[in-house]
């Protein structure tokens, strides 16, 4: 069965996420990160940050709301029961700090079939209130038996 590729190139509406100090701390704590720049405003500012700074992988928190509608789009038609998260890349720019307002746009980069599996590749681009890019994600989902 040929895989549906109509959604390649499709973009979804941007979402906005306001970064909060306690949310950063919660995320850092679950990963066991102890650097005070993630918990303490004075420590963060002493290290040169505007405010408490997020660990790089906090990008999943602010970019996921944009990705959800893309993954569940009927035009993408991904079979969730047979899907695994196959690969992930992030490239970071400006740090994300408490108080930042981050806007994320999601786009479908590629859909293709290889070795009987479907590959669905999405991109998220997140920018802060000054228009600077904070993170760019490439999300690869693999569906078995397409």
């Amino acid at each position: 069965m040929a895989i549906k590729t109509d959604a390649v190139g499709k973009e979804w509406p941007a979402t906005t996420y306001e970064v909060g100090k306690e949310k950063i701390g919660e995320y850092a704590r679950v990963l066991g990160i102890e650097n005070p720049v993630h918990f303490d405003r004075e420590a963060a500012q002493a290290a040169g940050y505007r405010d408490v700074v997020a660990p790089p992988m906090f990008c999943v928190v602010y970019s996921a709301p944009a990705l959800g509608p893309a993954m569940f789009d009927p035009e993408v038609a991904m079979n969730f029961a047979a899907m695994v998260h196959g690969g992930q890349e992030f490239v970071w720019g400006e740090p994300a700090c408490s108080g930042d307002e981050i806007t994320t746009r999601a786009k479908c980069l590629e859909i293709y079939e290889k070795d009987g599996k479907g590959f669905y590749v999405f991109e998220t681009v997140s920018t802060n209130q000054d228009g600077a890019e904070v993170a760019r994600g490439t999300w690869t989902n693999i569906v078995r038996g397409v």
Partner: protein
Amino acid sequence: MSELSAGDAIPELKTTPDKYLPHRYAGASGDFNPIHIDPEFAKAVGLPNTILHGLYMMGLTARAATEAAGGDPESLKRLSVQFRGMGAPETEIVVSGEVKSVEEGKATIEVVAAQGENVTIRNAEAEVEL
């Protein structure tokens, strides 16, 4: 400034996620996929039990690379991973890595996360600024 040279092993990061870690990670990240938190659901879709979030293990990989570069969160510039084996709670995770190259103040580190023989993240490549 951190000193890293090609061929160096980065310090190993070892952690054993407790039974409720996936619940806390779900809350912290917003990813409440039931395969990570509901054993009955996980078994119903053919998994042995609940499994760890892949992005949690990627988070540990990011932490290991960042700490190898001195700990400043801004030092991590890029990280790409491939998820392979499934991770299980209550089993030790070891993240290890090797510096592949150092050029113009940037180091490229190859990182692996494993639970015993089960490699959960492979072909991970981190780029850190020194």
